[in-house]
C-alpha cells in the first residue's frame, strides 16, 4: 500500500519510533533480561556484586530424581511391618548430610509409588512446591482450555439465533468479562464460603440438607476445582464473542443450500458451521491457553497458593520469589521456564491444527 516511489525514512522513524522504542524497552528488553538474570544470583537490592551461577537456578527449580528403597527386614529376613504396611528406611538419612549421596542433599519427597514387589520408588524434588505449581498449572490449562472453548461455542450458537431480545442476553453473558478478576475473585470467596456461602446454601436447599456444607477453598481436593469453575465463569463471555464473530463470517447461502437439501441440524453443524470456524478455533485455543498459563490474581486473592500448596501456580511462584522474596534471579528463571512452556505449547497447537494439504 505504501508508495513504491517515495522513500520517507525520516517520517517513518519519527512516527513509528516512539511506539517501537517503548516496546523495545519495556517488552523486548525485559524478556532478554529474564534470561540474563536467570543465570545469576541477582537480587532486587543487594550490597554484594551480582555473580554468574550458571544453571544453578534451574537445577534448584527443576531437580528431580528417583530413589528405590527395599523394605526394612529383621534378622530372620522377614519384612518389618508397621500399621499393616511394610516399613522403609528413612529418606532423611539419604538426603541429610549423607556422604555417599551428595547428589540427594536437600531434596524432599514429592510422591512415591510401588511397581509391584516389595520395593518402593520415591520421587524426590529439590523444590517440591514448584513441582506442584507446574502440575497445578497444567491441570488448570488442560481443563480450562477445552471446557471454556466448548462452553463459549455453545453460548455463541445459542446467541446466534434470531430471537427477539437476544442482544440483551448477549450483553448479560458478556458482563463478567468487563469486571476485574480481582473483584470477581473476592465475590466468589463469599459465594464459596464454608459456612454461610451462597453455594452451600443453594446445594443444601436443593438436596433438602443432604449435602453438608463444604469449605470449597479451604479443602485441598476442591480448592483448585473451585478456582477453575470461577475462572471459566468470568472469561467464557470473551470467547463467546470471538466465536460469534467467526460464526458471522460463514456465508448464509451455505445455510440456505443446506436447508433446501434437507440437512439435519447436526449435519449443518458438522459440515458447514464447524469447518467455517476452523481458524477461529485455532485462535481461541491459543489465546485461552496463553491466558490460562498466566493464572495469578485468583490465587493471590482467594487462596494464596494453599491449602497444602494445592493451588500453587507457576506465575504465583514467580511473583512470590521475584517480588515477595526479592529473589530476581529465581523469579526470572521461573519466567523463562514459563515462556518455554507457553512457546512449545503454542507451536504444538499450531502444528496439530495446521492446514492439511
Amino acid at each position, binding site marked *: 500500500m505504501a508508495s513504491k516511489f517515495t522513500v520517507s525514512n525520516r517520517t517513518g522513524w519519527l512516527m513509528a519510533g516512539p511506539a517501537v522504542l517503548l516496546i523495545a524497552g519495556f517488552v523486548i528488553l525485559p524478556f532478554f533480561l529474564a534470561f540474563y538474570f536467570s543465570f545469576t544470583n541477582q537480587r*532486587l537490592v543487594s550490597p554484594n556484586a551480582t555473580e554468574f551461577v550458571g544453571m544453578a537456578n534451574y537445577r534448584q527449580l527443576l531437580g528431580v530424581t528417583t530413589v528405590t528403597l527395599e523394605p526394612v527386614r529383621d534378622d530372620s529376613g522377614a519384612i518389618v511391618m508397621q500399621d499393616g504396611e511394610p516399613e522403609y528406611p528413612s529418606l532423611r538419612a539419604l538426603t541429610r548430610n549423607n556422604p555417599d549421596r551428595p547428589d540427594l542433599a536437600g531434596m524432599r519427597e514429592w510422591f512415591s509409588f510401588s511397581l509391584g514387589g516389595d520395593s518402593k520408588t520415591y520421587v524426590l524434588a529439590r523444590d517440591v512446591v514448584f513441582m506442584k505449581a507446574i502440575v497445578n498449572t497444567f491441570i488448570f490449562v488442560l481443563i480450562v482450555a477445552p471446557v471454556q472453548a466448548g462452553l463459549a461455542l455453545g453460548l455463541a450458537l445459542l446467541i446466534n439465533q434470531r430471537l427477539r431480545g437476544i442482544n440483551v442476553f448477549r450483553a448479560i453473558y458478556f458482563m463478567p468479562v468487563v469486571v476485574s478478576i480481582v473483584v470477581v475473585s473476592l465475590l466468589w470467596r463469599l459465594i464459596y464460603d464454608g459456612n454461610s456461602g451462597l453455594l452451600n446454601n443453594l446445594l443444601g436447599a436443593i438436596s433438602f440438607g443432604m449435602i453438608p456444607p463444604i469449605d470449597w477453598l479451604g479443602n485441598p481436593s476442591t480448592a483448585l476445582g473451585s478456582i477453575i469453575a470461577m475462572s471459566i465463569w468470568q472469561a467464557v463471555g470473551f470467547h463467546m464473542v470471538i466465536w460469534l464473530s467467526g460464526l458471522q463470517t460463514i456465508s448464509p447461502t451455505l445455510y440456505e443450500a443446506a436447508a433446501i437439501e434437507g440437512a439435519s441440524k447436526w449435519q449443518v453443524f458438522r459440515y458447514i458451521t464447524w469447518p467455517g470456524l476452523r481458524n477461529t478455533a485455532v485462535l481461541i485455543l491459543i489465546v485461552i491457553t496463553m491466558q490460562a498459563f498466566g493464572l495469578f490474581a485468583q490465587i493471590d486473592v482467594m487462596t494464596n497458593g494453599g491449602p497444602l500448596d494445592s493451588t500453587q501456580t507457576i506465575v504465583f511462584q514467580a511473583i512470590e520469589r521475584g517480588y515477595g522474596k526479592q529473589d530476581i534471579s529465581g523469579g526470572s528463571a521461573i519466567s523463562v521456564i514459563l515462556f518455554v512452556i507457553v512457546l512449545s505449547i503454542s507451536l504444538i497447537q499450531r502444528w496439530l491444527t495446521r492446514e492439511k494439504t
Partner: protein
Amino acid sequence: MALISADNRGLRLATRYAVLVLIAIIFIFPLVFMLMSSLKPDQQLLQDSGNLRAFLPVGDISLQNYYEAFQRAPVATFVFNSVLVTGVTVALSLLLCSAAGFAFVFVNWKGRNTLLAILLATLILPFETIAIPLLMMVAHLPWVGFDGLSWGWLNSYHVQIIPFIADGLTVFLFVQYFKDLPGELIEAARVEGASWWQIYRKIVMPLSGPIFATAAILKFLVMYNQYLWPLMVTQEEGYRPVMVGLQYFFQLNVAWGEVMAYLSLITVPVLAFYLYLQKAFIASIASTGVKG
C-alpha cells in the same frame, strides 16, 4: 393439526427463552448479590445469603457501608489514581500506536517490515513472563522530576503508565484497520503536496473512529483492571489504584458489607459504561479475534 404445531412452536420458543434466562441468571447473580449486599449491615448480609433475600434490597437498607468504606481507606485517592493512570495511558497509547500503525502501512521507510515482524512476535509474550525482570529494571531506572535527578521508578505514576503505553496488539489493530483504508486517497494527497501530518490528521483520523474506539476500550479494560503490576511497584498508598486498594478491607476482621460497597463503587461505573457502549465493547473484543 395446524393448531398442535402452532402450540409446539410456542412451547419450543418458551423453552428457548427459559434456557436463555437460566444462563443469564448464572452470569448475573454474583453481581446482583454484590450490589444488594453493599446496602446491608454485616449481620443481615450473612443471614440473607441463606435465601433469596440475598438478591433483594430488603431489610435494613442504607448507604452506611459506603460511608464506612470511605472512613476505612483513602478511597478517593485510589479512584483518582486509577482514573489518572488509565486516562493518561489510553490517550498516549492511541496517539503513539496509531502513529506507528500509520507509518507501517502508509509510509515507505527502511526497516519497517522487519520491525513490524518483531512487534508482532511480542504478541506471544504473556506479561507474566516479563513482570519480574521489568520490576528489576524500573527499580533502577533514572527519572528527572521537579526535584532533579532520581533513581528508581517505584512508587510513582509514571511507573504505572510508561511500560503500558505501547504494545504489539494495539499497533497490530491499527495496522489491520489502516490496510483496509483506500490507499489511493493517501497517494493522491501526497501528490497534491499534503504533509504526512495533514494526511494523518485530515484523512486517516476521520475515517478511523471505530478502531480508535476499539483500541481505547481494550486499553481501558486492561489498565483499570491492573492488579499484579501496581501491587509490585506501589507500596505507598498515595499511588495505589483501586484494585490494589482492596487490600485495606482485609486487615484484621473482614467487614463484608464494606467490601461489597467498595467493590460496587469501583465496578458499577465500568458496568454502566459497558451497558451504555455495549456494542462498541463487544465489537472491540471481537476484533481481537480477526486474524490478519
